[in-house]
């Protein structure tokens, strides 16, 4: 029934389930009456759990094990996914419902499933003020559908459709459950990101019209598009994804959105929503328009290095906890983009692992920031202090997350940053070596501001705000533990993320050689 036939039906059903289960969950949860608010949140967690399991199971060995290794540079279909579903949807607009998973998307798919599950579980325990808990849970599930769809899409127009799905739900999460300035922040978020996605729409159709197909697998490697088309398309894609990622100087929506968003919103936003930008740049930007990517790489590299420095410098001056973490995301995404911009296998792999690591660590950091703000009722660094005295465990976890984020070897954050720099050096030439040095300096600054954060928050005399902190609840431990463990595991065994990505990445970047 579902083409292509060499993928086992079980995997195809699993693949569909990854999208259908959360969508169904969102509908069910939204329709439950207000009386069952807590019940609805539990149901949402159940759906998220099923989706997570289904996503994790996608790595089951398929009959295609040998398929995707059989790559030759001249092959029209260089990247063959493990599992795929290909259905006709809107032929008039050239949209096929073509989804699949491979080594590049799999880690992000699992990460999305995990973070949504943790966030849903977190809402069972605590609903931020502003609206009903079940609506929030339903919106989280809708967000999951959009994000997973973006990672899974193998059709360019379908990719765009899923890219758009997340806009309004995220707006609603920020505007409905956020802080005092939520409306403005939410509006800024939605307008900025819509600006990005309309450029994506233009880029998508530039490619689809020129190539006559939207199949990402067929398009990978350029598909013989003319250099001009590729440059135009890449320019549109790059700006579109740079808004989403966000890349300095298009990042200004991010700090506001993060500061005002509720904890779960921040976690999803930083953890996986931003990754749609960096993933899109690798899969769509570099994949579809490699010549355009090569043409624009120096600019991207310079902007990425600028983002690293700018993010770090701004962080040094931040006085608000969530804002600081948000700006640190700008710096980390700078490393990811630097890795991507080198267009080497090492660089793109560094970008992929940087993506996953940032999702884990920043997700954890935002959970912690939320926990601290909920208890202290302030995120002002001046009002916090001495957390070590009153809440040693919370302080400990915060210390762990901060150190992981600054890139201590052995923890997840190290690999992405270090190898982005290595890739830039490998790329050679005065420009890339300079960028590598600048990025390394930025890395050092990252350490500076995270240590400053720790000094301000955990050390020193306990302030009034942190005096009577309730202990860390079981629900919070439940949400944090998987992230803590995975940060350690990915840090120690980065091959977990990269093992399956080598060949697809080689195929994506191979077109340039």
């Amino acid at each position, binding site marked *: 029934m579902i083409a292509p036939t060499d993928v086992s039906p079980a995997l195809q059903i699993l693949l569909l389930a990854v999208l259908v289960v959360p969508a169904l969950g969102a509908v069910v949860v939204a329709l439950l009456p207000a009386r069952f608010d807590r019940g609805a949140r539990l149901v949402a967690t159940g759906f998220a759990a099923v989706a997570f399991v289904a996503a994790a199971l996608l790595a089951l060995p398929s009959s295609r094990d040998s398929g995707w290794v059989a790559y030759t540079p001249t092959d029209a279909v260089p990247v063959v996914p493990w599992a795929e579903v290909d259905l006709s*949807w*809107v*032929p*008039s*607009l*050239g*949209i096929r419902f073509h989804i699949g998973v491979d080594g590049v998307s799999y880690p992000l798919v699992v990460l999305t499933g995990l973070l949504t599950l943790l966030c849903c579980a977190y809402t069972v325990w605590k609903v931020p003020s502003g*609206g009903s808990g079940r609506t929030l849970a339903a919106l989280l599930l809708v967000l999951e559908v*959009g994000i997973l769809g973006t990672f899974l899409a193998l059709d360019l*127009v379908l990719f*765009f*459709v899923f890219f*758009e*799905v997340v*806009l*309004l739900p995220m*707006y609603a999460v920020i*505007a*409905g459950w956020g802080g005092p300035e939520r*409306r403005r922040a*939410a*509006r800024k978020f*939605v*307008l900025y990101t*819509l*600006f990005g996605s*309309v*450029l994506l*729409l*233009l880029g998508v*159709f*530039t490619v*689809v*019209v020129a190539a006559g197909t939207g199949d990402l697998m067929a398009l990978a490697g350029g598909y013989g598009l003319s250099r001009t088309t590729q440059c135009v398309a890449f320019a549109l894609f790059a700006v579109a994804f740079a808004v989403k990622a966000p890349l300095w100087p298009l990042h200004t929506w991010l700090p506001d959105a993060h500061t005002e968003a509720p904890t779960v919103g921040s976690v999803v936003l930083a953890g996986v929503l931003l990754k749609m930008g960096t993933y899109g740049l690798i899969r769509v930007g570099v994949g579809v328009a490699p010549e355009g990517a090569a043409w624009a790489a120096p600019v991207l590299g310079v902007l990425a290095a600028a983002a690293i420095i700018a993010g770090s410098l701004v962080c040094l001056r931040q006085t608000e906890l969530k804002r600081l973490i948000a700006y640190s995301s700008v710096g980390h995404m700078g490393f990811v983009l630097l890795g991507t911009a080198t267009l080497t296998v090492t660089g793109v792999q560094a970008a992929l692992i940087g993506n996953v690591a940032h999702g884990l660590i920043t997700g954890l950091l935002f959970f912690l920031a939320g926990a601290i703000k909920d208890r202290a009722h302030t995120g002002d660094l001046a009002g916090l202090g001495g957390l070590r005295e009153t809440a040693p465990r919370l302080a400990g976890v915060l210390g762990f997350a901060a150190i992981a984020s600054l890139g201590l070897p052995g923890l997840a954050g190290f690999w992405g940053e270090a190898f982005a720099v290595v890739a830039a050096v490998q790329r050679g030439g005065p420009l890339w070596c300079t960028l590598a040095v600048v990025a390394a300096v930025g890395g050092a600054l990252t350490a500076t501001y995270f240590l400053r954060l720790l000094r301000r928050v955990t050390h020193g005399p306990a302030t009034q705000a942190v005096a009577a902190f309730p202990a860390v609840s079981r629900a919070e431990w439940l949400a944090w533990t998987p992230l803590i463990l995975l940060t350690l595991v990915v840090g120690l065994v980065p091959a977990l993320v990269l093992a399956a990505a080598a060949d697809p990445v080689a195929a994506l970047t191979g077109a340039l050689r």
Partner: protein
Amino acid sequence: MTQAVNHVALLPLYAAAGTALLVLVADLVVGRFHLPAAVLGGLATAVCATAVPDHTATFCSGDLCSWIVTPHAALMTVLFAGLTIGVLGLSAPALRQGLAPAGEYCFLLTCAMTGGVVVAYAGDLISLIVGLETLTLPLYVLVGLRRIRVSAAGASAAVTFFLVSVVSTAIALLGAALLYAATGALHLDALTEGSGVYAPLASVGAALVVVGFAFKVAAVPLHAWAPATYDGAPVPVAAYLSTASKLGGVLALAAVVQRLDTGPLVAVLAVLTMTVGNLVALRQTRMVRLLAWSSVAQAGYILAALAAGAAGVEAAYAYAVFFVLLELIAFGVVTALRAPGEDGGDLEDYRGAGRRARWMGAALVLALAGLAGLPPGFAGLFAKVAVVGALIGAGWGWLAGVVALNAVIALAYYVRVAALLYAAPQPAGVVDPELLERATRPRVVVSRVVVVAAAVTIVLGFAPQAVFDALTG
């Protein structure tokens, strides 16, 4: 000389005109049952439209015909009938309370539907203009038709609309006459660029026809009548103006621009229309005015597709289909949330309305999201995708860029309204919230219309191919 008339091809017209007559007779003889008669007639029109075999034609001279059955004509007729039924449903509470004379109201609305049917099937410029006039003429009356004079707004709106419309018809007729003088063609299929010394004359004729029709879709700078008229009219009539009447204008424009080279003129109109519409909508504080300006802007997107000529017509039709559905939902919700006969009110009146009336709030969010071209309004998303895809495909990349940027501007006011629906209600002043609730509880008929329209929109949102298939047959 007698001419063979293919009565089967004319069935939809017979059904529509028969409906109008039936309503008139029902009013004169029994004095009631206007509404059921009109609704049944509308359904019959839709059924006839789907039943008539494609590619039949009548009133032919040679191989040029004045009445041509095409797949898109059938779809548009179904849409006209559906919109008429929908607007009748929206007006039901007001008619039941006797705020407007029910017989006349239903008669005029079904007359307008008949005009719409003619526009859909017209094969020559004169039939097209006559159809368009039949579509709008009853609306002049409907805009001001009220038993109780609330304010002068209705009457002045009707007069503005009437004057502008008459002028625009005159311009379109002049254009048609010039075209005829230059090329000797009135049948749409025979329209050509003039040649030789008559070429400039033909271009002027084509431009005048386009300008005349552009009035009907309220394209900037020919839009000034729209916001005042929409706001002064009863909300259901405003709904009809911004859906059926606009659809008629789009069909007429499409008939001309796909055959004559008017690309630059239409492109200029499109850019002005969407940009001005969106920018002015940003500053509106009244609900219906905001919807009116947004509807001006939306017409700009359709015009953009039409600027690409024949290549963009299918996208323009598709956009129009999705747009009228979304617009009907939006106006339907406004009608549902207001007492019968009330105008659209200020935006502030809708604060927290989504919390009181959950389903109506959700429907309005669906409509606004669709108009902004974002999920969950998938219908609107695919409409935008169709337009942008068609423009880039036809080499009008820069216009696609303008459309895209305008979508960003438009989102600013759509989210403002949507957010307002769920904002915390302000502490009630003198108004008892319970009284307010009772006064503003959505009425059953109205909410049924909204629910049906929303259901159709959601289904088409997931299966937009159905619309494209229906358009191409």
